[in-house]
């Protein structure tokens, strides 16, 4: 999740940069790009292609070499495996459960924090702070909060006379519990992006609309939210991709359980590739998952291009 922070500025600025600069500066540009391009080729494109090759072989982590050629057997096995599809579904379910609240809550918090006159820094810090906490600590703390019967949440609900679910241990609640934990943990990142977006909205617009008699609610609806559009799109897409990449907090807090009810596709890949030594098969599943991420990213690209053209 942390890697997203790096890509933000380049992506936002991309539409603006197109078509700028005369032709002859191209060579220098490539030269400047070379260090990055070489590393990108070596460490990203190269391994990805190697992974693609691996996915057509029956490789093993306890044998050297690629292993016997398997054709598309790994792919057909994955596509007909109930475990693969259920893990894919868990990843999608997690995304459905986390992406909307992480966008909406972050926007609400940012708008509220932006309206403050005093102590704004404090709220910014408070909302962003959880994002800094390492995943191991988050799962440890929430492990205590979610402890059945004696945990904080269970005792609160019990005091209110509401029967508490067993949170992480109940197949119907486990994913919801993890989603709640994730929202608390990562909302700060989106919050900061929205804050930055809010700062870009010229103050004069608010003054002008106030002169025209717009209520604060109308300002929010007709001014703030539409002008945040680009930020919202960016945050939504980053969030979708981040949510689709879920692994660590699930692996640490439920191990994919109870009874595989939360195992995301990355854990499935991990289980197949590391625990079961089947690197070829794991590579094939990785490729299928890569296609999903690629599709989501392509949608993002298309939408942001269309917006850039309109702007």
């Amino acid at each position, binding site marked *: 999740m942390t890697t997203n922070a790096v890509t933000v500025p380049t992506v936002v600025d991309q539409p603006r940069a197109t078509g700028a600069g005369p032709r002859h500066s191209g060579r220098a540009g490539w030269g400047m790009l070379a260090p990055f391009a070489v590393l990108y080729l070596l460490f990203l494109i190269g391994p990805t292609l*190697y*992974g693609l090759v691996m996915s057509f072989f029956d490789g093993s982590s306890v044998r050297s070499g690629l292993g016997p050629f398997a054709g598309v057997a790994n792919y057909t096995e994955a596509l007909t495996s109930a475990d693969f599809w259920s893990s894919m579904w868990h990843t999608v379910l997690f995304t459905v459960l986390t992406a909307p609240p992480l966008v909406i809550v972050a926007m609400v918090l940012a708008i509220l924090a932006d309206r403050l006159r005093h102590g704004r820094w404090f709220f910014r810090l408070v909302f962003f702070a959880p994002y800094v906490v390492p995943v191991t600590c988050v799962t440890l703390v929430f492990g205590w909060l979610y402890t059945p019967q004696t945990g904080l949440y269970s005792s609160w609900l019990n005091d209110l006379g509401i029967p508490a679910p067993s949170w992480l241990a109940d197949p119907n609640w486990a994913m919801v519990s993890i989603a709640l934990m994730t929202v608390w943990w990562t909302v700060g990142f989106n919050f900061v992006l929205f804050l930055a977006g809010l700062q870009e909205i010229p103050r004069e617009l608010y003054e002008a609309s106030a002169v025209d008699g717009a209520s604060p609610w109308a300002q929010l609806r007709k001014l703030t939210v539409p002008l945040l559009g680009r930020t919202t799109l960016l945050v939504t897409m980053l969030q979708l991709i981040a949510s689709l990449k879920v692994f660590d907090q699930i692996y640490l807090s*439920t191990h994919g359980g109870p009874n595989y009810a939360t195992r995301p596709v990355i854990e499935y890949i991990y289980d197949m590739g*590391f*625990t*079961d030594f089947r690197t070829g098969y794991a590579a094939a599943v990785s490729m299928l998952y890569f296609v999903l991420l690629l599709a989501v990213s392509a949608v993002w690209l298309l939408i942001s291009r269309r917006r850039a053209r309109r702007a």
Partner: protein
Amino acid sequence: MTAPQCTSRPSAAGHTTHGPARRSVLAALGLLGAGGATVGLSGCGSVLAGVAGTGPPHDSLTYWNLFTGGDGGHMVSMEQQYEHAHPNVDLNAVSLTWGNPYYTKLALAILGNRPPDVAISHLSRLPTLAEADLLEPLEPAVLARHGLTADKFTPAAWRKAHVNGKLYAIPLDTHPFVMYYNTEVFKKAGLLRSDGSLKPIEGTDGLIAAMTACQKVTGHYGGVVNINADPATCWRWFDTLYGQLGGQVLADSGTKVVLDDAKASRVLSFQQELTVRRKLMPSSIDGNGVIQTFGTGKAGILFDGEWQFPTYQAAKVPFSMAPVPNIMGGTYHCYADSHSFILPRDAHRDATRRDTCLGLVRGLLDASMIWAQGGHIPAWKPIQDSAAYHKLKPQSDYVAAANAAVYDPGGWYSGAGSDFENIMGFAVAAVEAGQMSPDAAIAQMHSKLSQYASKPAPVGGTAA
């Protein structure tokens, strides 16, 4: 996070998370190396040796283990004892995180021709490593020169150290699944004799009676065993009872599923009876909850591995330990595993070096009285039979469990930290939590296990 993991999934890696991205970086580095085969950057020492193109110095030994926490501390003391007695050997001990990362690193280091000289392996993992041709078989004659003979080891562990009739490991310990009991609760519940010793608990009725008596004293639970997010413990608890019925899960190196539905159903129904129907044990509890429940006297009995001993010793709860009682009434069995020493396959190892390696093994075995303090039953008889060990209480009270050990069945997907344990454990947990009927759980075990049993093993052979 080190290089050996890299070949497993570089493809998606670059697009997923930070960690794997680094792995793919290292994978690419590996590819750049000669023929892409030199991925194994084992310890620091061997990295330098690899870069310089020289072999390790003759009297330096690399020893990999998977001990951290209390065990890690004990192992360091044992290493120090060895180093003190062998000042001429430069021991380079590396502690790695246990589980998949350890076994992946070990396998890739061996494939990359940079193996450690001596390494630790669970005996339940041994068949896979041996069949993958990653280990050096140990010659009895060579071992005998170091005094390492069959009669000096726990028989069950020594047997399990063999694969296809050949010895591949030297057992360090047996770590069984045992019963912890709160001595104060047991005394009040009338479960102790006047001299403080444990009255025998026998059969399912005996356990129910004992737990009911404990529950009256504690006001909460009679007993406790971990359920949530801990498939391994669920499997151990199931296997202990199922083993007492003489049940087997896999046969023919894991190619056949021989799960006995009637026996498994008896065990699962009993486990569910304790949690859901009689509420003698919590039906939803996690690791923290277990420590809290038994550590604060809210349960009289705890079923767990003996390696939790230091935890409860620190919790200052009055407790003692015993083998899990014979609950199902067959031949006595309980789940156990063993740590053992292995010599990874290494073309550079000559007779002298082999002797140095075995000298280290012998030295650590001789120091295993330290190891016993952590709760493990030493496999080395000279320690196990010693007066000092007998005086060590409650550690020496469950030695019987070492000989009644049932290990995980053979199979490439079985053993400590394997998917086999996950498949079995997740189904058991669902039954104990009342989320699944025993029959449904058995059906799920069959369907998931048969997917593995029908696949060709990804270990063994030398694929191009």
